[in-house]
């Protein structure tokens, strides 16, 4: 191989800068950091592949789909290749994953053959460093004959340096010298291409590699001659020419890597990496998991559901808002309307009070905690830790993913049961999701309820729910002996979360949550209001009395909380939370109601998805099983506690 500098093609003053890179290299983050945000997305002509465009320093910037090769095998790769060929760009920025330079340099060497002005962006440099990967950037820049910058796009680091290189970008000087037969073929094919064609060497190589579309596009008049050249060259190799060309490129990539990349000893001593390894360790992972759960409980349960809810309910609503608006609403001459707004089941006193004063502070703290878990890289490790107990139940490894996703939203997780292989598996995981996996909002309220309980009471609740899930899961696994499959997940490095990302993520989640739940809270309150006004609520309380009062040992008022729990489980949980704060429920009753509401029937959206995915019969079967089962477990717990004289 040799190094020579090709001359840049004539530049169009309005030519865009093109962003290119392999999938998962942080290309979108670089695009976002350069342009500020996505601006416009449109389909690339003739395809369904979308491209995004923006501008940086007044220069158009096009973000292309992630590619592994410019010898296209997919629509994404074809579109990226065509963008390069259609119009000579002002510059190409290749975003490379500094942690996996081998994959990126393969693309770099292909781009070298296009002869376009070029900048190599080594993104995620911090993570490469954390993994003990040291890249001699100066030496790589000299070897390639190209501008190179290091960035951490998620933190906007290195972006000014990247911008500053736009003007000095130049075609890559490095050229691969392939085998003699291939070089001869490149020369022959290039001679048959239009003379003013930019990137003719790259095009000749792609045609040689079997790209018939380019052959028709650039050398249709000489198609037979080109095919003869290809056939003659292929005769000298056992493998397809595209494979031979790629292997020779890899040889050059490995040669470059040997010169510029060293893996030092940092890997074994880095705290974050050690923590990441310990967090999935079968033994040490458990105390770390418990620490995370205790932290979650203290932040969400004690701070969110205690301090924040107390402030919102006792101060904001009871001292400021209600005393201010009650006299105004009482001016309304129709008592029915007054009652509808600020009565026992009033839209303000119940729906907004529950939604804003109780649930919002809890989910706010939960979303903050969940955002930290996500951005720190611990969440996938939590999934790995959960994989073990699920496998102990005998469940297919693939079933773990929907269960973990259920902690976010059971409705969406039900959709992901499609990845399971048999209908029985899908139905059983749907059942387990609906039965015992609380969604994020419900989990937040449950943590709030736990904050009122002693450690012993929380242990009893945890033991009952875990044993119930284990028994149901085990029985399900016996009914479904299907083969086990591995749970494969790429573990990202442990990182320190960025405060701004957590704030933005939490705000977006909170806004979405309020938009989604407040209408349902209002609907649930309207139903209770109507039941109360018509006397049906008293009748239902009387009807449910043998179950709620005698069976569960709970006060009759909890019937209302269970009724609204049919709309959303977190709303029902918020109702029980409110009763407990008012002293209507004692600690023992709170544990029993906590168990029932954890195992309670899925929310209405989840039922609709079950109907859509599995049909009415299955949905009725799932709800028909869970409803008596949840109350049955509650009744058993009540009698067991009474029998052993346990109170909390």
């Amino acid at each position, binding site marked *: 191989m040799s190094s020579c500098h090709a001359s840049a093609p004539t530049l169009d003053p309005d030519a865009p800068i093109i962003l290119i890179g392999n999938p998962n290299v942080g290309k979108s*983050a670089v695009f976002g950091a350069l342009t500020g945000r996505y*601006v416009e997305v449109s389909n690339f*002509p003739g395809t369904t592949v*979308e491209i995004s465009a923006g501008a940086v320093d007044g220069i158009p910037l096009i973000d292309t789909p992630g590619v592994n090769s410019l010898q296209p095998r997919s629509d994404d790769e074809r579109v990226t290749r065509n963008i390069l060929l259609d119009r000579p760009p002002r510059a190409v920025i290749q975003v490379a994953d500094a942690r996996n330079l081998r994959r990126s340099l393969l693309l770099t060497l292909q781009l070298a053959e296009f002869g376009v002005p070029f900048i190599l962006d080594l993104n995620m440099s911090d993570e490469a460093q954390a993994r003990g990967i040291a890249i001699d950037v100066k030496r790589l820049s000299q070897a390639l004959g190209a501008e190179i910058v290091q960035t951490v796009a998620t933190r906007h680091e290195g972006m000014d340096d990247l911008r500053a290189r736009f003007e000095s970008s130049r075609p890559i000087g490095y050229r691969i010298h392939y085998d003699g037969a291939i070089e001869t073929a490149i020369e022959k094919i290039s001679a048959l291409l239009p003379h003013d064609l930019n990137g003719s060497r790259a095009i000749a190589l792609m045609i040689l590699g079997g790209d018939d579309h380019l052959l028709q596009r650039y050398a249709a008049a000489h198609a037979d001659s080109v095919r003869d050249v290809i056939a003659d060259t292929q005769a000298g190799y056992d493998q397809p020419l595209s494979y031979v060309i790629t292997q020779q490129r890899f040889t050059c990539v490995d040669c470059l890597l040997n010169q510029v990349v060293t893996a030092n000893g940092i890997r074994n001593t880095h705290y974050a990496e050690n923590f990441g390894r310990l967090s999935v360790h079968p033994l040490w992972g458990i105390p770390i998991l418990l620490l995370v759960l205790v932290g979650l409980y203290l932040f969400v349960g004690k701070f969110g559901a205690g301090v924040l809810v107390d402030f919102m309910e006792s101060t904001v609503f009871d001292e400021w808002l209600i005393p201010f608006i009650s006299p105004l609403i009482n001016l309304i001459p129709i008592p029915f309307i007054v009652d509808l707004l600020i009565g026992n089941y009033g839209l303000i006193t119940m729906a907004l009070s529950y939604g804003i004063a109780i649930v919002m502070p809890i989910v706010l703290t939960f979303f903050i905690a969940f955002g930290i878990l996500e951005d720190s890289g611990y969440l996938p490790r939590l999934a790995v830790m959960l994989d073990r107990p699920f496998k102990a139940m005998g469940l297919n490894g693939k079933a773990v993913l929907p269960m973990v996703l259920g902690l976010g939203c059971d409705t969406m997780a039900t959709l992901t049961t499609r990845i399971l292989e048999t209908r029985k598996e899908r139905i059983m995981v749907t059942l387990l999701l609906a039965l015992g996996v609380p969604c994020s909002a419900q989990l937040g309220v449950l943590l709030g309820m736990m904050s009122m309980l002693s450690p012993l009471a929380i242990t009893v609740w945890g033991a009952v729910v875990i044993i119930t899930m284990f028994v149901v899961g085990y029985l399900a696994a016996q009914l479904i002996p299907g083969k086990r499959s591995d749970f494969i997940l790429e573990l990202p490095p442990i990182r320190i979360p960025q405060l701004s990302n957590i704030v933005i993520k939490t705000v977006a989640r909170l806004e979405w949550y309020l938009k989604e739940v407040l209408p349902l809270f209002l609907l649930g309150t309207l139903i209770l209001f109507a039941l109360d006004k018509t006397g049906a609520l008293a009748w239902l309380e009387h009807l449910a009395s043998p179950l709620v009062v005698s069976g569960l040992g709970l006060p009759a008022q909890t019937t209302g909380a269970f009724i609204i729990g049919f709309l959303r489980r977190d709303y029902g949980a918020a109702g029980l939370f409110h009763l407990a704060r008012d002293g209507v429920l004692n600690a023992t009753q709170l544990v029993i109601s906590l168990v029932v509401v954890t195992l309670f029937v899925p929310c209405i959206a989840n039922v609709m998805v079950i109907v859509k995915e599995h049909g009415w019969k299955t949905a009725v079967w799932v709800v028909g099983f869970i409803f008596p089962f949840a109350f049955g477990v509650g009744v058993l717990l009540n009698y067991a506690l009474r029998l052993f004289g346990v109170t909390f």
Partner: protein
Amino acid sequence: MICPLCGYEYDEKNLSCHSSCPMANGCAILCCPNCGYQIVDESKSSVASWLRKLLNKNDPKVVNIQDIEVRKNQ
């Protein structure tokens, strides 16, 4: 967008709402095409967009894609 669960990078603009979802209309949830993990689309939140704008106020202005000519190639 990089999935917080599996680390898969995807373009959220290429996603469409799940056809089976009963709340697909105006849905603000992004589902990772690789593992299904759901996160809220920050661009659909007006407050989050305002916050992001505030935090990224030094970023350059953007132009419309119509100003950028991408010629049809086939």
